[in-house]
């Protein structure tokens, strides 16, 4: 038997060897996985967004086409994560960046979502020099540049502008609700009353599943009640969150709720738009992405429906703005820089925005590419006073916006103006200082 292994020894040794190999191999892989981005593959560009459906996905594809025409050797990887307003995508993105695996460029709302989440954490690269070399100062409004800047640096480039303060009116039933009656909130409430008296039981459509739609009503009312300067002041310390305007704005929501569909808590904004289309409601207050819903359902802008500034906010533009920037440690840095250039270019924005249903952030894109409502909005955008949206991440950090959404969810149930005003002031104390 000398020199030969017994069966038991053989099994033991094979077992040990396999075990060592498995543990060692696993450990090596684990180390490799922890060791950062690894070697960047020849020429890729990974773009992270939450544009997965309909017009927005089409618009993104148009920009990809422009990019690949210019840089033919780069393959684009579309890392889009589904979920309205990026609710899931943001969680995925946070995990990736914390784990040291950032995409090459990602979609982020202008304002606090960019600045207080990513820039403050030191996760972004400034694009100040790109901004200068591309000459964007001449074509992108200064107010907008301020929203994507902090200190002396610019951190991302705006691709599109959505309007948060828009009122959508069906032409079928809309004699009472028109641009002249919606100049003030009181006029609007009067018009709703007229519509209700004429037999439309729930003239104002609202979908509040998720509560952010009510936050939009609130921010629009704040602008209507206190004006754009007061509104902007709430976020730079010049106006106070205990001001009486807060209660007045809440009070107007409460009065609007008298005309709202009873099932609002279970439906989303698109189903609310559906009520306007069906004629069971006369109007709905929603961002201009609602236009995409109407046109997708074969309604013609300005013939079957129309869009005007939301009640009392004429002359202001509630900014909901998507931007792209370059994170630190982007695996294909140069490709990402080129992507940002495409995003800010005239070609890129003229290709993207008509599909997305937004207006371009640049003021030199020909209006003829757009439908009549967008053309009107583009005209107003040039002279309007710009206000950043809370509901869409621009005005305040996520913790405040999300807390406010919760509070609005409470408010539509209880309609307690004083309690909600106190809670909102508390939130502002906690997260806006």
């Amino acid at each position, binding site marked *: 038997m*000398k*020199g*030969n*292994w017994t069966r038991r*020894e053989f099994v*033991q*040794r094979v*077992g*040990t060897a396999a*075990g060592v190999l*498995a*543990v060692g191999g696993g450990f090596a892989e684990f180390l490799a996985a922890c060791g950062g981005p690894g070697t960047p593959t020849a020429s890729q560009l990974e773009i992270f967004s939450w544009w997965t459906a309909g017009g927005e996905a089409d618009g993104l594809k148009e920009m990809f086409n422009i990019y690949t025409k210019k840089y033919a050797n780069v393959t684009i990887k579309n890392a889009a994560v589904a979920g309205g307003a990026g*609710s899931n995508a*943001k*969680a995925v993105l*946070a995990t990736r*960046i*914390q784990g040291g695996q950032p995409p090459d460029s990602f979609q982020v709302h202008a304002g606090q979502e960019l600045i*207080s*989440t*990513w820039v*403050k*954490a*030191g*996760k972004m690269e400034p694009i100040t020099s790109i901004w200068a070399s591309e000459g964007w100062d001449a074509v992108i409004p200064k107010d907008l540049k301020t929203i994507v800047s902090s200190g002396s640096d610019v951190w991302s480039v705006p691709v599109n502008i959505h309007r948060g303060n828009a009122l959508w009116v069906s032409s079928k039933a809309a004699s009472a609700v028109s641009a002249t009656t919606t100049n003030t909130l009181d006029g609007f409430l009067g018009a709703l009353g007229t519509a209700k008296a004429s037999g439309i039981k729930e003239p104002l459509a609202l979908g*509040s*599943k*998720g*509560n952010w739609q009510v936050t939009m009503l609130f921010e629009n009312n704040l602008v209507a009640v206190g004006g754009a300067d007061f509104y902007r002041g709430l976020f730079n310390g010049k106006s106070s969150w205990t001001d009486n305007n807060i209660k007045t704005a809440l009070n107007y929501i409460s009065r609007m709720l008298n005309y709202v569909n*009873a*099932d*609002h*808590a*279970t*439906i989303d904004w698109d189903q609310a738009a559906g009520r306007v289309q069906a004629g069971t409601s006369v109007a709905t207050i929603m961002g201009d992405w609602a236009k995409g819903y109407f046109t997708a359902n074969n309604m013609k802008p300005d013939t079957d429906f129309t869009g005007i500034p939301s009640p009392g906010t004429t002359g202001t533009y509630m900014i909901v703005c998507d931007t792209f920037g370059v994170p630190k440690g982007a695996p294909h840095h140069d490709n990402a820089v080129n992507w940002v250039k495409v995003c800010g270019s005239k070609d890129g924005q003229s290709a993207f925005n008509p599909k997305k249903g937004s207006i371009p952030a640049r003021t030199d894109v020909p209006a003829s590419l757009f439908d009549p409502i967008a053309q009107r909005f583009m005209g107003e955008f040039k002279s309007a006073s710009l206000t950043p949206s809370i509901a869409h991440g621009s005005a305040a*950090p*996520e*913790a405040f916006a*999300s*807390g406010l959404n*919760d509070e609005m*969810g*409470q408010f*539509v*149930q*209880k309609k307690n103006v004083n309690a909600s005003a106190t*809670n909102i002031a508390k939130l502002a104390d906690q997260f806006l200082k």
Partner: protein
Amino acid sequence: MATSGTAARERLPSGGRSLRHFSWDSLTPFLLIAPSVILIAVFVYGFIGYTAYVSTTKWYGINPDYTSVGLQQYTDLFGLPRFQADLTNTVEFTILFLFGCIVLGFGAAILLDQKLRGTIFFQNVFLFPLAISFIVTGTVWRWMLNPNTGINMLFEQAHLGFLKSPWLADTHTALYGVVIAATWQMSGFCMAMFLAGLRGIPDELREAARVDGASELQGFLRVILPLMRPITLSAVIILGHISLKIFDLIVAMTNGGPGYATDMPGFYMFTATFRQNLYGRGAAIAMVLLFLVALLIVPYLVWSMRQEVER
């Protein structure tokens, strides 16, 4: 390898007994268990420890901030109206859900145990909902419980308008809507457990009861029900921890609304951590959840360990 192997074998006879103590034979089981022990130690208990640690810091934002704040996160948390609503919701939901599942499941199991024709068919019908994910269940029930469509429309067409209810649209009824969906999905599982239990009772026991002069009802109450106790306990444990951790059903049905009417700690944990970037608060909610589940599981573990000792 072969030569060193033989060398070791040749040395064996001289110091055999003491060396056998460290022989491969006794080491092998430890080596085989080691990977899973290490992985569980790191990825389960290690991360529980880390979460507990994070819950005592003020981490707010993308970058970790390990400044200690003691139990501040917990005192803040219990002072929040949203979290207070979460706790009452989760208790109310758990009680209704457990009660519904056990009553319906046990009832169905008794009916199916009657050895009639077609029981196999119904057994499967009752069990199928279990194969669907909570997201699907939630979406379908959301449609059915919408006040303007679904069940209400059915009631109206059947001239049973008085049964109409705002369901998910109203703060007072929304939680019941979620309970109905959850019960629909999980009562089949309860049925399967009870059915297995009932089938496991030997006929001799029932016979013996009858011989002793017990009526069917007495036999059921005094013989069958006591034998179902361990199964009921298992059902409570399994369903109880599902109900405490419920998340997907809430996301699909109500997003926690209207107001806080159907918000649950699991859902708020996600919102706080990933939407509000309040990592410290999210960790604190996770620890509260862990504590609640432990409250349910630990007595069960103690009980089952005692049973094993007795055996």
